[in-house]
């Protein structure tokens, strides 16, 4: 009994000493700031910063090879804490959110062909440039949904991508995945967006769908400077917003592609579907 206790005890002590020596001798020197940074980062390992996970980003931050404002999920709070830890000065950018720039659902838009194949927008885009007549419309096969690390995206019953504003962190992964750039980042504080992504002239857009921007410029006439034209497509000038004028423009938009996304309950006035129109 005693012999066993002594022999095992001494073995244990020997191993403990060995381990303690090894721990000291082979210790990996980690900058304490790296551990602190890892604590303040969002911890989603989303990869939106361009690094494989939060710890890699923390390492890059300490090494000084990464910009401090890349953690989109963390937002301004994380940025401020990163700045404190790294002892640098930063100006927080405005938080952003993903916006689906298309309202051309199954009813409103015209299909180019029946698509059977991989449930992936990028693969579908390779078949005659996508199954929708509109070259900019949401294909609704959910590549963005698959890639969103926060579960903020979904495809609704009508085959359009939808953003959950509460869950979206503005990381921008969906923007880089979408083969048609239907998704775009916009300031999270803005509610009014142009929900169309078609670059073509009105004559063509009318053929594609019933809710596309036809480039009539009515919004610009109603709310100058709040909107800008890019080719035949109106865009919100997010740097210069006047809520009342923009609400007017929203009312006057003939194809209802300017939408207030903060009030989703209100449905757009009925417009005839493509089927009704062509028959």
């Amino acid at each position, binding site marked *: 009994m005693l012999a066993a206790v002594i022999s095992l005890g001494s073995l244990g002590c020997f191993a403990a000493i060995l381990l303690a020596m090894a721990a000291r001798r082979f210790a990996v020197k980690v900058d304490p700031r790296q551990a602190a940074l890892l604590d303040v980062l969002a911890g989603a390992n989303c990869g939106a910063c361009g690094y494989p996970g939060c710890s890699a980003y923390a390492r890059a931050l300490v090494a000084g090879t990464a910009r401090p404002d890349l953690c989109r999920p963390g937002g301004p709070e994380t940025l401020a804490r990163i700045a404190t830890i790294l002892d640098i000065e930063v100006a927080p950018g405005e938080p952003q959110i993903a916006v689906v720039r298309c309202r051309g659902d199954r009813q409103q838009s015209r299909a180019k062909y029946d698509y059977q194949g991989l449930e992936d927008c990028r*693969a579908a885009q390779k078949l005659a440039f996508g199954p929708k007549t509109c070259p900019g419309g949401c294909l609704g096969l959910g590549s963005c949904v698959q890639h969103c690390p926060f579960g903020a995206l979904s495809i609704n019953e009508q085959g359009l991508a939808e953003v959950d504003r509460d869950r979206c962190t503005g990381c921008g992964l969906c923007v880089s995945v979408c083969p048609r750039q239907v998704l775009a980042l916009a300031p999270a504080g803005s509610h009014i967006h142009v929900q169309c992504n078609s670059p073509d002239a009105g004559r063509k857009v009318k053929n594609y769908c019933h809710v596309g921007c036809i480039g009539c410029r009515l919004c610009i006439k109603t709310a100058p400077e709040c909107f800008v034209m890019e080719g035949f497509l109106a865009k919100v000038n997010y740097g210069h917003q006047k809520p009342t004028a923009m609400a007017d423009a929203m009312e006057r938009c003939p194809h209802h592609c300017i939408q207030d996304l903060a009030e989703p309950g209100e449905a757009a006035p009925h417009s005839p579907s493509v089927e009704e129109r062509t028959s």
Partner: protein
Amino acid sequence: MKRRSFPGGTHPPQHKSATADTPSEICPLPPELVIPLAQHVGAPAVACVNAGQRVGRGQVVGKPNGFVSVPVHASTSGLVVAVESRPHPCGAELPAVILQPDGDDVWAEEYLTQSFHVLTTETMLERIREAGVVGMGGAAFPTHVKLDPPHGKTIDTAIVNAVECEPWVTADRRVLLEQRDKVLTGLEVLQKISGARQMWIGLEDNQTDVAALLAPHCKQRGVGIAIMPAKYPQGAERQIIYAITGRRVPTRGLPMDVGVLVQNVGTVAALTDAVTRARPLIERMVTISGPDVARPRNLRVRIGTPVAHLLKHCGLREEAAKVLLGGPMMGTAQHTLAVPVLRGTSGVLAFRRQDITAPAVGSCLRCGRCVAACPMHLLPTFIADYARRDALDLAERFAARNCIECGSCSFVCPAGIPLVQSIRYAKGAILARRRST
């Protein structure tokens, strides 16, 4: 006669009897020809005519733009109505010359008949280029580029590809039967230009009647006839080279790296017209077939004839649910019938709704049939899986880029998985990533 093949491949039902033994007919001119400026691999031609201009048959309407490019010609005489974007078989709208035939069909200039023996190689290559000859098997690669290998590459074997392994399509067979002399002259031209010592005509064993007809002429010219078992994709370049010569084209290499030149039989016939008569390629053999076509047959079609015109001419049993350009294995489905026949269009196939029911997509059973069928020795199920998970590094390590997109794996998959589509996506994504870094 040799009888060799390649490992892998599949045996899709052939459906060739509908058109194989009916002599071809001339397709009447459509009310409007749509002649795209991009009909070949390489830089598209640049339009050199304007709306309102009258052109003769065979007149150049698009000038080549660079070395890997060929001119585009008016397929008949008439009035240029417009130069504008029109639906192209690739799915996009691309610039095309719209021609209204005047019905006279007069050549723009007199073309002399000249023996090719007096011509130099340079003159012949120049004529081939000016005639706009491209690979008519489907790839539409400019022939003058293929015939003019860079220094240090010598060609010792030339193969005329008459395998036509795609089901339904019989255009190459009709060319071989009806334009035999042109093909044989083309062979001699090919031999003179390339300096090949060995010449082969490759056929599948369902074409032994053609082989028997050709045999005496080929023997006289020292051309071998290689009969290969009917198996898909026997007509693919690497597969036919391996079957006939036993040589393997390197992964990123070209047939010229192993001293071989492969030309489609239609191209060889077009080559004869280009060299001996300086006539441009404005017409080709097209198989109009499929279960929805009332009177399936081969037509000699002017380039630029809209598909709708061909289907109207041959009659449809009911409204087509799917129309393919090319064969059913590698052809492309069209979303509009306004697309024209191009130089590389071998067939127009129409299917009814009941012919095209796609199998329900299930999960991979790990049965390995795609692996056995792949003629490129790839593991399609693995690559497709990596593609779906965006694991591009793994897809690349499993040689996704070697895929020739023949469709054998998708065809044999009992779970109906769109394997080729996944692999094609991976190939595109790998290339895009390579370009961006």
